[in-house]
């Protein structure tokens, strides 16, 4: 789950990382009031779950409350990478200006199986280019899960970045604060870019990004409350509520599969035989009939769908449960879309027996099923 900048920064601040004063506005009037409170010299920033805001025009400076209102007016409602901006963050400018931009992140290094602190004295929007052209400018330090961040680690980063020595103590506090924030919120990414040295010689986190591990949300009620689904498609919201992993795509063959790997493979094989999947859909392990019915309704709610391919290889999931779910869904949703069903593994025979009366094309192998679905979808296109 991704957080908005303002949410991330408030969490940073709760762990002792200094951030600018500021607040969120959903209207130009809000922006006026906030900017006036902050003295007029502010930055107005689109709050959407996407990078690239700056280049898309979603970040604007203002030097009066009126300018802030105008900036908010321009940004609110803007589309950034397909997402609509519903709110802006109005922040004071860095006190005394910006002397240097630093990059600082805590993330998970899968290869080393450790949280990693990554930093560079060359922060700012071009950090990816820096990483590619001058990798030695990116400093990486791994954190032991039981020890946490130690002073010698932040000192090492500070020394390697050439950070002025009078800032080391504050830098250590920020690194430990950011790691504490990462850990307390089960983040997979916590990024500050830029962390600036202000004109007054202090460190301050001007921007913030955080991604939370979805597996941990059960113990993070305060994060769940932050979920903003205003830019999430309705079908994906429904899927999430039902515990189904669903992503809408542009093709015309609806897919229902158990297991992410097999679901991706099913899409790959559809493509291989000249078709185009309408979605990725993994009903997960051990899905019950109701979940299967919800999944089918989601697939059929997409008007592009010309055929449905159901590919279930039972292990945890049982073929009879899947078959019951299909029957339930078809009782509720009247559809002319043709189905290809392929059940294998645990209780597959029982499932096929339940489906015997429904008019469905069946298949024994995935290749066979995909070829039949592609043919049916083309037939549907022709009719």
């Amino acid at each position, binding site marked *: 789950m991704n957080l908005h900048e303002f949410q991330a920064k408030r969490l940073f601040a709760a762990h002792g990382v200094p951030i600018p004063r500021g607040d969120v506005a959903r209207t130009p009037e809000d922006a006026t009031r906030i900017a006036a409170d902050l003295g007029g010299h502010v930055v107005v920033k689109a709050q959407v779950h996407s990078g690239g805001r700056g280049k898309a025009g979603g970040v604007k400076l203002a030097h009066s409350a009126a300018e802030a209102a105008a900036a908010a007016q321009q940004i609110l409602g803007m589309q950034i990478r397909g997402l609509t901006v519903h709110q802006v963050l109005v922040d004071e400018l860095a006190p005394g200006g910006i002397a240097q931009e630093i990059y600082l992140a805590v993330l998970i290094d899968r290869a080393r199986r450790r949280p990693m602190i990554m930093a560079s004295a060359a922060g700012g929007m071009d*950090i990816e280019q820096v990483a590619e052209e001058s990798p030695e400018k990116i400093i990486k330090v791994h954190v*032991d899960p039981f020890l946490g961040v130690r002073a010698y680690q932040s000192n090492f980063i500070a020394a390697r970045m050439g950070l002025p020595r009078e800032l080391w103590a504050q830098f250590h506090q920020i690194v430990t604060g950011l790691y504490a924030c990462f*850990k307390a919120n089960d983040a997979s990414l916590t*990024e500050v870019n830029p962390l600036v040295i202000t004109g007054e010689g202090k460190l301050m986190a001007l921007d913030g990004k955080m991604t939370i591990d979805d597996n*941990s949300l059960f113990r993070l009620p305060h994060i769940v409350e932050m979920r903003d689904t205003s830019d999430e498609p309705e079908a994906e919201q429904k899927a999430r509520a039902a515990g189904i992993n669903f992503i809408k795509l542009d093709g015309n063959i609806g897919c229902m599969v158990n297991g992410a790997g097999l679901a*991706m493979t099913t899409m790959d094989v559809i493509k291989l035989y000249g078709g185009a999947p309408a979605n990725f859909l993994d009903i997960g*392990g051990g899905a019950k009939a109701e979940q299967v019915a919800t999944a089918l309704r989601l697939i059929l709610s997409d008007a592009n769908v010309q055929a449905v391919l159901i590919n279930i290889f039972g292990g945890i999931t049982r073929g009879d449960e899947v078959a019951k779910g299909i029957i339930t869904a078809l009782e509720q949703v009247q559809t002319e879309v043709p189905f290809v069903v392929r059940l294998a593994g645990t209780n597959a025979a029982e499932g096929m027996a339940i489906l015997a009366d429904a008019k469905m094309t069946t298949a024994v192998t995935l290749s066979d099923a995909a070829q039949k679905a592609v043919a049916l979808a083309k037939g549907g296109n022709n009719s």
Partner: protein
Amino acid sequence: MSILIDKQTRLVVSGITGREGSFHTTQMMAYGTNVVAGVTPGKGGQFFAAAGQQVPIFDTIAEAVLETGANTSMIIVPARFAVEAIYEAADAGVSLIVCLTEYIPVLDMIAARAYLDAKGVRLVGPNCPGLLTPGQAKVGFIPGNIAMPGPVGVVSKSGTLTYEVIDALTRLGIGQTTCVGIGGDPINGTDFIDVLKLFEADAETEHIVMIGEIGGNAEEQAAVFIKQHVSKPVTAFIAGRTAPPGRRMGHAGAIVEGKSGTAEGKIAALREAGIPVAENPDDIARIVAQRMGKA
């Protein structure tokens, strides 16, 4: 021969009285797996009945190990209890832990893996279908009836896709030494390279099938390892060629992963190492048959 599990396996199941736990334990016992104990805190002293046997239930894994000589632990409990069960199994002294549970928080697994490494205990999983040594033992979800004994070692990040591949091999009359589902979580206990080493050392394994998917760089690392250290033929498959790229937040991912993680990158790395990569799971079995001189 086989790897990790066989007739010597003495299995203790954590979560044996749960809905999934009892269903799959029954299936494992029906397959012939030697399930010696179950664990459910508060139910010590009761018995789990299946396949005509009475399996004693203990309050803790440590007691199960002391009383029954269990050497392998299977964990099938809800995610919020699973990491605790991993620590418990490691402390109890089993040599292999198989954790089937999915949705375990990543930071919890980082700590658990560090602990296991220090203890020298092997974990397979989490979020994995487990292991199957056809004709000997099954620990996990892999349906026993789709497999048969034979010379191919199968290792996979995926669950159901693995069944698909085993099924295809068996339909072509090609049996398996052991099938290992390592799970697709970002942090797991056993990776491709660990299993490749075991298959390389296993006298009965003649051919290895490796099934990967997008994300991480375990397949790329495995490709390098195979080129340098694996003498047996390996046939591979990568799922996710048509998967849409995820929306990325921030720069960190790009800086760390660069171009690794995509299906194209993984396929290129494997082919670079001389490993045939199938286009379709059915093709895997055909390629293996061909390379074994069976087709």
